[in-house]
């Protein structure tokens, strides 16, 4: 600021940088355009198609409720991935952490005495889900910190351990006599569902979990932005060598980060299996672990970005049935989601595209200014 010419020398190529939300929006719009082209190719009207998509997601109270309810786990899984990502870790173990959160909640739901008042019950299952998810994340973090086992490898393995534990626990503890591959459905009073909320949203599955997800967004935002813990973890993620130099305990940070990420995924398990659904299935790895990665990328790994990205994904998931009912194959809606994921994952390209435009503008402006100077 003090010295103009120094500034220019110090900062070459200082054209404006693209804001991340513009990248996300571009990704969404490109995805939608690509989807429209696909719809056109199979000879349908894309406007009608997207109208149906929105109809399916938002046309009435029940559908809105279901969309938000669907988004709940996506928010939490997106947060889980984002949090680890900010610490430089790639938590691909969200599915397993979610399964563990789900099975512990489900078992608690069946075994806690029904005399327990609902608020107390809710507190217990929330703590249970957070704790087991956190433990599952912590194991991966511990293996990384102490034995340098890459978290991607260990958390994928932990996914399968969770998968088979659930496979064993369902028949062992919460067996459904009628359908052998599912757990016994939880009584409505033992889910996160609230009677008044269910009625107010036309019997949708919207539940307390959505509130938890909002709280989680705020808490995670607070941790990352306002606390020494967040500073610590972000420093490790941004440059572990500098963090180590500064005296931050990298190994401890990795474990804490994975535990928090795991706890969020565990909570997602609670909201999914005891909120959105009321039972667990054997032999099913939840997709949310991977959807969460896409949500996090689209939301630029910021809690608020994740929130809206998750609702967008939730709407796509909820609306694609109506889209398909017009005769457009359901797989197309999946393709649209996949396309958006593709465009988000390659956001570097989108960002460089925007940066190029900014640079051109900058150069034009500069050339114009110089031309005027000469005159």
């Amino acid at each position, binding site marked *: 600021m003090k010295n103009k010419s120094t500034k220019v020398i110090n900062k070459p190529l200082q054209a404006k940088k693209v*804001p991340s939300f513009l990248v*996300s929006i571009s990704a969404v719009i490109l995805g939608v355009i690509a989807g429209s082209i696909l719809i056109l190719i199979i000879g349908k009207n894309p406007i009608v198609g997207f109208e149906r998509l929105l109809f399916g997601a938002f046309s009435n109270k029940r559908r809105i409720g*279901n969309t938000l309810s669907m988004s709940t786990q996506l928010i939490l899984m997106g947060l889980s991935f984002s949090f680890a990502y900010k610490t430089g870790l790639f938590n691909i173990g969200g599915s397993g952490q979610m399964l563990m959160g789900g099975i512990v909640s489900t078992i608690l739901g069946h075994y806690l005495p029904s005399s327990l008042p609902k608020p107390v019950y809710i507190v217990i299952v929330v703590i249970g889900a957070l704790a087991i998810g956190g433990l599952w994340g912590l194991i991966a973090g511990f293996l990384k910190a102490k034995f340098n086992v890459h978290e991607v490898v260990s958390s994928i393995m932990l996914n399968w351990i969770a998968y088979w534990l659930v496979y064993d626990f369902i028949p062992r503890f919460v067996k459904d006599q009628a359908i052998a591959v599912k757990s016994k459905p939880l009584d409505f009073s033992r889910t996160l569902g609230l009677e008044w909320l269910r009625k107010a949203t036309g019997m949708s599955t919207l539940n307390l979990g959505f509130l938890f997800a909002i709280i989680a967004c705020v808490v995670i935002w607070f941790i990352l932005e306002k606390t020494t813990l967040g500073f610590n973890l972000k420093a490790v993620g941004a440059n572990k060598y500098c963090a180590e130099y500064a005296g931050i305990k990298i190994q401890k940070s990795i474990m804490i980060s994975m535990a928090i990420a795991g706890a969020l995924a565990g909570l997602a398990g609670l909201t999914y299996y005891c909120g959105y659904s009321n039972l667990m299935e054997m032999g*099913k790895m939840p997709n949310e672990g991977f959807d969460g990665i896409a949500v996090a990328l689209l939301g630029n790994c910021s809690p608020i970005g994740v929130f809206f990205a998750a609702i967008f994904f939730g709407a796509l998931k909820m609306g694609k*049935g109506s889209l398909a*009912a017009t005769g457009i194959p359901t797989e197309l809606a999946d393709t649209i989601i996949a396309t958006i994921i593709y465009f988000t994952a390659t956001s570097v390209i989108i960002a460089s595209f925007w940066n190029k435009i900014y640079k051109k503008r900058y150069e034009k402006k500069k050339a114009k200014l110089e031309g005027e100077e000469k005159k």
Partner: protein
Amino acid sequence: MKKTIALALALLLCFSVFAQGAAETKTETPALKVGMVTDSGTIDDRSFNQGTFEGVKKAAEEFGLECTYLRPSGTTTTDYVTAITDLYDAGYRFIACPGFLFADAVAQVQAMYDDLMLVIIDDALSAGIGANSVAVVFKEHESGFLAGLATALKLEEGSVGFLGGMEIPSVQKFNWGFQQGVIYANENYGTKITMDPSNFVYSGSFADIALGQQIANTLFSKGVDAVFCAAGTTGVGGLNETKNRALSGENVWAVGVDVDQYYEGDLGNGKSCILTSAMKDVTGVAYDMVKAAVEGKFPGGTLLTLGVADDRAGIPASNPNLTPEIEAKVAEVAALIKAGTVVVRDNGAGLIK
């Protein structure tokens, strides 16, 4: 903060652009539209989904109806309910639901819509069948029995094994029926087929091709000559292993499940390693149900238990791997089952697992 609010606004904006299209309402056509929702598999699973949809489609074409299928976004009850209501909101009034996974969803939806005809296949709706719903179950043990019989007659002597999915009633019934069929052949037709309990395996999964292949590999290595693969996609792994071994010249066989899987075992030379298949005729049932709905004879509120006697369970009428004599013998026994002379038990008393 500002950025994210902008993000939200932009999202809303792009929604509202599309929402304008929503204002145009379409006129409802009074003609019946028939639909189906897939369960955890895909529409081309060569099994329940595909079989059921073929029946629905066949009937729809015959009666000039609009038909489609939906793949839910997940496999929870909520996902199924959403898919069914999506079809309902699009004007579909007949919906087939292939698979026991739909049980809870059908139970919920049948209470929501009076004018929706629902068919659930492979589940008895133990919680109660609504006035507008039909539950269809099969006597798997009877098809298993005929498959076991045909296998034993083909092998004459040797050893048979079983590759199951999850240890659930419908799979168990296939297994038990199969064993009874083999025993029947040993007792009545002088075949010498052995069954070792260690060769009767439940893989625990319907979706793990590699696992199926491994188990089949183990079974064949232990000297089994034919494996009954009743395990969905896992079973496909078993069929693949059989195919590989058959291609390298081994004399091994597989028995298919649910639908006629003859072409799954295609060896590329016009032959197949699939000896026979223990079928549930979902295509026939779906066709029947659409037909009944069109004709106004939809049997709402009933449980249909279909078996050999109804021609909705059994093995394919012909398979090039079976001689006409074997097929004739199987047909004889099938007639005895129809007549009630031969009774196949649907429990595992005295049998392996």
